[in-house]
């Protein structure tokens, strides 16, 4: 017995050391170099800085007329807008898809499954957005994020709806409750756990998205934080201290979410994945 305990102690120690070296050192490296001066950061090593330069962060924020701050506002707006719409659209849709079984819902289920697998057709999407007058607009990118997140989110809501007993609705119906009131007052409150999962998962996804803003929100006027970092990479490839500071700054929002909602994120991924 004693031997076995000892063995697990060793496994613990080795696993912690290995995961720190493999997964923590890269982030430590970035943070360390983000507070060095230009020359020391350019050496790109793990030695402690001789002088600490937190003003790098201010410099990154203020460069190009506070571009990064505007990008933060855009990214937060896109993320929040997409999530509100996504929850609205998918909670209604997922609920009905679970409750009604018929040809229509079967067809919708099928095309949603297709969306889980196939990537978007990019240029035709731009063509449609152009036609609707929403290309290169924040509203346009919000709608695109919603459309592309619909498959996964609808699946989560549909799966969760199965756990809500129909007897509740039947009783409410007998008492004279219509479908809309039923949804708003009875079903949606019961959806809160899955809504929380969706909020956490999708906000990380959408905030970190690079590809969709690159295609659907091009031009320097309305950058997102990911586009700003990408553009910095091209422009300041010798100013590593600023690049590293930028990475640290745009990683803070997901980091906060992670600290508070670690469990939620993990349970959401497994729920979605297992049902998929």
């Amino acid at each position, binding site marked *: 017995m004693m031997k076995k305990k000892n063995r*697990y102690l060793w*496994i613990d120690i080795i*696993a*912690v050391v290995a*995961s720190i070296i*493999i*997964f923590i050192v*890269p982030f430590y490296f970035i943070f360390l170099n983000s507070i060095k001066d230009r020359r020391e950061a*350019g050496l*790109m*090593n793990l030695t402690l800085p001789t002088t600490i330069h937190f003003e790098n962060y201010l410099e990154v924020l203020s460069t190009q007329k506070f571009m990064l701050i505007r990008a933060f506002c855009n990214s937060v707006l896109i993320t929040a807008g997409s999530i509100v719409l996504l929850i609205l*659209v998918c909670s*209604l*849709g997922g*609920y*009905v898809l679970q*409750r*009604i079984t018929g040809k229509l819902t079967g067809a*919708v289920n099928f095309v949603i499954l297709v*969306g889980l*697998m196939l*990537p*978007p*057709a*990019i*240029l*035709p*999407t*731009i*063509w*449609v*957005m*152009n036609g609707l007058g929403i290309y290169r607009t924040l509203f346009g990118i919000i*709608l695109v994020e919603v*459309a592309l997140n619909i498959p996964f989110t*609808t699946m989560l809501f549909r799966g969760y709806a199965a756990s809500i007993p129909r007897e509740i609705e*039947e009783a409410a119906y007998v008492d004279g409750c219509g*479908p*809309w009131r039923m*949804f708003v007052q009875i079903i949606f409150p019961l959806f809160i756990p899955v809504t929380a999962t969706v909020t956490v998962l999708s906000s*990380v996804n959408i*905030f*970190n998205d690079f*590809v969709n803003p690159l*295609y659907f929100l091009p031009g320097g006027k309305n950058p997102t934080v*990911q586009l700003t*970092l990408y553009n910095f990479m091209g422009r300041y490839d010798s100013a*590593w201290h600023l*690049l590293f500071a930028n*990475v640290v700054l*745009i*990683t803070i929002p*997901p980091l906060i979410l*992670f600290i508070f909602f670690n469990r939620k*994120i*993990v349970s959401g*991924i*497994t729920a979605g*994945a*297992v049902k998929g």
Partner: protein
Amino acid sequence: MKSKIYNPWFLAPLVLVYAALFLIPMIISFFFSMTIWTLTEFRFVGLYNFKTFFSEYSLRIGVKNTLLYAALTCGFKAIFGLALAVLLTSPMKTKNLIRSILFFPNLVSTIAVGMIFSSMMHPSRGLFNSLLGALGIAGPDWLGNASLALFSVIAVDVWKGVGVATVIYVAGLMAIPETYYEAASIDGAGGFQRFRMITLPLVQSSINTVIVLAFIGGIRTFDLIWTMTKGGPGFATDTMASIIYKQYAYGFYGLSTAGNVIMFLLIAAIVFPLYRFLISLEVDV
């Protein structure tokens, strides 16, 4: 009674947004892939774009790279993830901490991860080669060497994505009743036998999920490639998605859309049969 409780119109907003910005573009992409196209005007050219795609080396190589990328990232995530998940469901004390650490890179944007590793893979000053140099080994040019670059990016992708695979496996492993293992132990099964005869078959549905997710993700990969190598050196790391972007940037919209269609067909031709095969491996408990 049903129709009065459930209102089918609840589906309308979902169908509207999804159709307008995903389904319709997908369907018309088949048409525009057969045109020379400027977004405002088009000229029908039949299969010309597809011929161009497969006759030019710089485009064709994207298909090969994409398949290699998808197969390798998927394989490594599936194997490492399972090994890590088995470890993290053992009676370790620090398993929750390690699960969190392992999962963290997933929350960092791919652009940032690409940047971090590009700097660490810098040929002369990067952390990797400095460490190798300290050991007296001349490190390679991780991203500048044409025969190595794709594998460097693949390694970073696995580093970032193995956490998700692990989480999915851990959920699957925890659902296996402990009594199965106890019964097997009483019958005299060793550790490897228990893994082979109990764990592996019962975790098959998680394996399937990981493989399908990772494979689709691999075929669609773009941001990591684009931030780390931009498809270079030469075309050594170009994938379908980076070619689609390049053709778009050059203004070849019809060709770019043809790339998109080829990507659809590739996924359909591989993932659907793969999924069927994987499902057939699952056992009923």
